[in-house]
């Protein structure tokens, strides 16, 4: 009896957030949604079992995905949660910064299929060492 895996989705665009949420539910995941950095942190505090984080760069409010990541990396309980960054901002120095902060994958939204990203998530969660 395996429980549903929980994925925290931090994405400020409602239309995109809802598409991601629907797709994840369809593939058997439990999405938890957030639009700002602080909502994301609150969600982590309230949900013990977040298996993965789907993170956008530009977020609602003043702080962005990098601010979120910084805070996350300072909390021992959250350090090992895998992160996929999915953003339309493909600036190379940003991608490099994210990778240096230890995220697992980086996608440019407009160039990626939703289905492909979700498939990659499933593969990663099943075989974390191969991703």
């Amino acid at each position: 009896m395996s429980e549903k895996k929980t994925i925290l989705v931090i994405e400020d665009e409602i239309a995109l957030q809802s598409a991601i949420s629907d797709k994840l539910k369809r593939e058997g995941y439990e999405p938890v949604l957030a639009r700002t950095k602080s909502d994301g942190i609150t969600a982590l505090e309230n949900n013990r079992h977040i298996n993965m984080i789907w993170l956008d760069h530009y977020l609602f409010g003043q702080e962005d995905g990098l601010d979120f990541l910084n805070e996350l990396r300072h909390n021992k309980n959250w350090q090992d949660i895998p992160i996929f960054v999915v953003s339309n901002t493909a600036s190379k120095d940003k991608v490099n910064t994210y990778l240096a902060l230890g995220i697992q994958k980086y996608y440019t939204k407009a160039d990626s299929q939703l289905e492909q990203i979700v498939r990659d998530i499933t593969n990663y969660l099943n075989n974390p060492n191969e991703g």
Partner: protein
Amino acid sequence: MGDIPKDDVLKQKERLEKQRTAILNVLEDIAVEKEKFEKLEKKFEDIARSSSDFLWEIDDENKYTYASGHIKEILGYEPEEIIGKTPFDLMEAEEAKRIKKIFALRSKERKPIINLKNWNIGKGKQKVCLLTNGIPIVDKHGIFRGYRGADKNITEQEQIDQAKTEFVSLASHQLRTPLTAISWYTEMVLSEDAGKLTPEQKKYLQEVYKGNKRMIDLVNSLLNVSRLELGTFMVEPEMADLREIADDMIKELEHRMKKKNISFSKKYDNNLPKIKVDVKLITVVFQNLLSNAVKYTPEKGKISLSIEKEEPNVLINVTDTGYGIPKEQQNKIFSKLFRADNVTQKDTEGTGLGLYIVKSIVDNAGGKIWFESEEDKGTTFFVQLPLSGMKAKKGTKKLN
């Protein structure tokens, strides 16, 4: 002493008369020449004054020996203030280095300087973009003495161009979010996440998806163009095999070639070494040249690709038996947004950005691109890349 014979005196006098006439003639000639010279000087001064360009002369050490009064309006300096200085003294360090190198190369070959864009700092610290043209001065012994030329102030034009480019970049970024929404929702409906589709619904939605994909590609191309123009793209060279990069592209195009019954052949140099290139940028080059060949070659045509070592370069050439480029439009083929008349009717999907991007990349890599083409016979594109590879360039954006 005896008397001087009368004859001698007369002869002497006659000789002196002749000399006098000769001297007077010379003086007259000089006066005429002087007048001519003064006229010429006046003419030159009038031209220099009425031209909106700044006219100049530099010696063989690049030091100004003449500057027309317009420098005051353009850069804020009096001509006397810059005599003895070099053009590079008026630039920021990095720009000075770049322009100095070009001057050195041109003067070594005694070649003219043509439409060289350079950024200067005016007396009031303002940034001024000049378009420099100059011809080498060589004296009668064949010794190089410097340059003479004119600088046009193109700052305003450049600023408008920059604003345009920045606008395109911003707009393209903003477009990506709604395009992603269309793409992802269409994808979900097509995967029948929201219920079964009739074959017709599926077909129509596939068209929506394809149209949207084209729009994303266009936005990506526009972003690439703005990055190339703003100079914000980065070059990250790594050792790579050009043959492998080409093969990856060919694989992607196989299906389309099969559909059009196009026969494809390739010829690779077995001794081609790996060279240091930015794989992403070179992929864009192969992608555009090969997909253009497929796009603009009619059914049952032929396409061939060869990659060969020709010290100190690699020569890539892509030949097709396609529609060709009309002669009168060949000089525009690398211009932004240009599409030749004979293909706009046959294919509506081109953006007119591909070859512009390719040329920018090849130029940046220190290479060369050219072509030979005949309408309804075909086209060959040649790309020459230095075996020494590409130089790393720090930027903030990568090309898509």
